């Protein structure tokens, strides 16, 4: 009898400890709500089902990310330089578009940044939102403040609100205030409120962004890639600039798998398509003259792209499965100012 009581006490103590680590109440741990399809239970008892991920729509990328980008989490998106801000912004808007498409509520999209970041990289431009990303400009709330600390405060407060659909926090450079504690708080609030927080990092002139660790489970490196050609009724238009293409490198991933992808954003369907790495749109159009973005019309190209991928990576001189040198985190390599 006494031993049983002691064992039970130990069990309770352990449960409390687990609850403390998980950040929830011990009572809630007792019976986690297991959905019928046997999905995993993550932090705070939020079940991970299909809705727990933002699916990019690119099977290979989703698979590499173990189902997609986590929906209720902090995700870091890095641009190597100021010039990449166009690509980073476009990608953030594209992800937000994917989030808002699946979002029944009319929650706003918060974009928080500092004055100097907006001066250097320009202000997110509302008229582009509706046309290319299907986001009504009214849903965007822009917050421009002077100091990083103020931006972090607003982000922290906004991340708490369940009414917010997605939050984009743009931080320039590598401020000391953006430390592990702050990002953990953001991650925690994102998990509790169930919406994504995208941490967009902009490199400032002297200091590369991203040298310090953050609590974000996923970090993506973004740079632009040459776009395909514009599609017309009579085939691709030579010399034109088609829909944007992003070079996405997975720099940090929960299951440890890095990778590199070329994603094309289709402004008309508001979805991503993969382009094989090493694909040259000019030659493609001139040589066969039939298709320019094969993925859009021939989604069955995916298996062959795997083979191409391996060749391209080997050619880059990077170790197997890692992004090539110039795609590494901004802090590791020399970078040209600009």
């Amino acid at each position, binding site marked *: 009898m006494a031993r049983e009581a002691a064992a039970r006490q130990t069990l309770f103590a352990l449960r409390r400890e687990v609850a403390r680590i998980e950040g929830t109440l011990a009572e809630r741990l007792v019976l986690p709500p297991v959905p019928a399809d046997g999905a995993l239970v993550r932090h705070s008892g939020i079940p991970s089902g299909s809705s727990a991920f933002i699916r990019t729509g690119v099977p290979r990328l989703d698979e590499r990310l173990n189902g997609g980008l986590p929906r209720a989490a902090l995700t870091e998106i890095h641009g190597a330089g100021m010039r990449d801000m*166009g690509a980073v912004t476009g990608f953030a808007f594209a992800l937000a578009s994917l989030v808002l498409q699946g979002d029944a509520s009319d929650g706003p999209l918060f974009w928080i940044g500092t004055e100097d970041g907006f001066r250097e990289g320009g202000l997110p431009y509302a008229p582009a939102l509706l046309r290319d990303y299907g986001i009504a400009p009214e849903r965007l709330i822009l917050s421009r403040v002077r100091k990083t600390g103020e931006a972090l405060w607003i982000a922290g407060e*906004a991340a708490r609100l369940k*009414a917010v659909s997605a939050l984009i926090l743009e931080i320039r450079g590598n401020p000391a205030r953006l430390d592990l504690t702050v990002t953990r708080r953001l991650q925690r609030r994102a998990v509790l409120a169930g919406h994504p927080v995208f941490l967009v990092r902009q490199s400032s002139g002297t200091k590369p962004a991203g040298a310090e660790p953050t609590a974000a489970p996923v970090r993506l490196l973004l740079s632009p890639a040459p776009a395909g050609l514009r599609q017309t009724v009579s085939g691709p238009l030579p010399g034109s600039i088609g829909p944007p293409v992003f070079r996405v490198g997975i720099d940090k991933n929960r299951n440890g798998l890095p990778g590199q992808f070329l994603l094309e954003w289709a402004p008309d369907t508001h979805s991503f398509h993969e382009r094989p790495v090493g694909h040259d749109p000019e030659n493609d159009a001139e040589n066969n003259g039939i298709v320019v973005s094969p993925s859009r019309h021939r989604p069955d190209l995916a298996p062959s792209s795997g083979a191409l991928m391996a060749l391209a990576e080997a050619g880059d001189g990077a170790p197997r499965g890692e992004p090539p040198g110039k795609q590494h985190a901004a802090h590791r390599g020399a970078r040209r100012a600009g």
Partner: protein
Amino acid sequence: MASRQENNTRRIAALDERAEALGLKCGMGIADARAMYPAIEIAEEDCEADRRLLESLADWCDRYTPLVAVEGKDGLFLDISGSAHLFGGEKRLLDEVLSCFLHQGFAVSAGLASTPGAAWAAARFSLSPIREGKEKEALWPLPLAALRLPAETRERVESVGLKRAGMLLATPRAPLARRFGKELLLRIDQFLGIVDEPVSPRLPVSPLSVERRLTEPAMLQSEIEYLAGLLASTLRTELERRGEGARMLRLSLFRVDGVVNRIEIGTSQPLRDPALIRRLFRERLAALEGAIDAGYGFDLVRLSVSATAPFETPQAGLAGENADGEEELAMLADRIRARLGARAVLKPACMESHIPERAALELPYAEAAAGSLTATVRKSGQGGPLPPQRPVRLFGHPEQVDVTAEVPEGPPLRFRWRNVTHRVARSEGPERIAPEWWHAAALERTRDYYRVEDEAGHRYWIYREGFYGAETVHPRWFLQGLFA
């Protein structure tokens, strides 16, 4: 002693007691005064500073009545009707005002009467309070100066031998008006209360205000927050009775030594809940940290509502939780605004304009909140032709770039932006945007926009300013935006 420049002479504008004891007088020439007493200290009169001091005194007098008006260069009107009983009667209020000013180091004379004219005279000629209906007796022995007449009129009246105000009362009115103008009679009537004279208060009077007088001055921020919450809960009943909520709130902190701090917050939705009001003031106080000097503490705290709006009571869900995200959001926007200013939360609005920088406008959230968040998403391709492609980021000020182009009116080949040269791999354009001539901005020139992609795949929005040949021979190039 302060001096003032008057025409070509410098005269004494103000002087202290010791100088007065020497026999100097206001209006005396500085040269004469110097000749009499070479050691006197003279400073230039600073009207601006005097006015500021008077206004801060008026602020301080706010504690007695919300109706405080500044009179001339050195006077204040306090309309104490309705507020005297709070201080134990008119006489005690007068005593308290006088003793407070005396302790602050001001020599003040005050008068109490039922008309502004009589009060003015009572203060200038140190009369005992004039009771209502006794103005005539009070006016009788006073000199003409008690009537606030312009110097010119006064001299003319005096020149005919009417030295005392009482003499005017005994004189028939019609000849007086004919000879000296209407103002003389108006002043007399205002003194007697026959003509009502409005005193326009310096600050707009709030429709609602509550205050708390403290015996022990409050100094800590937490105490002020607590008081704000307390006052807000008092305010709540009145707001509920009116069916309104506050859109603009002002917290006035009266410091013991006479400085008044006013803290204002605005809300994007009518507000009633004391906890929320307290929270907003907490943000505001946190932002003002350092800007407010508590000094020896605040002994009077007043919360007033300066703008109200009808309050719609929402039906609460039976489950208790009211899942109204918009309200939550408005509250956050208000808090950000209280802390960082109205320009910290913006809502973009698309304007009807061809000029890119005019096509988008950022409105403060509170202003934009008048419209609804729930706008329908228009699918591109529907309803008219597809709008032209626009960059995702736009620079507020287009940045000039050095461009090499094959032909002056052709697309760029190479450009230099922020010290880096970019080779253009492909370009699309031009998209010609003419200046909006109907906006009276004749200085603007036609812009030819190109979407260009450099070899690394960065996509930029570049324009050439000026129509080559017709408008300019050396067109300048600007980079205005970044494409995804």
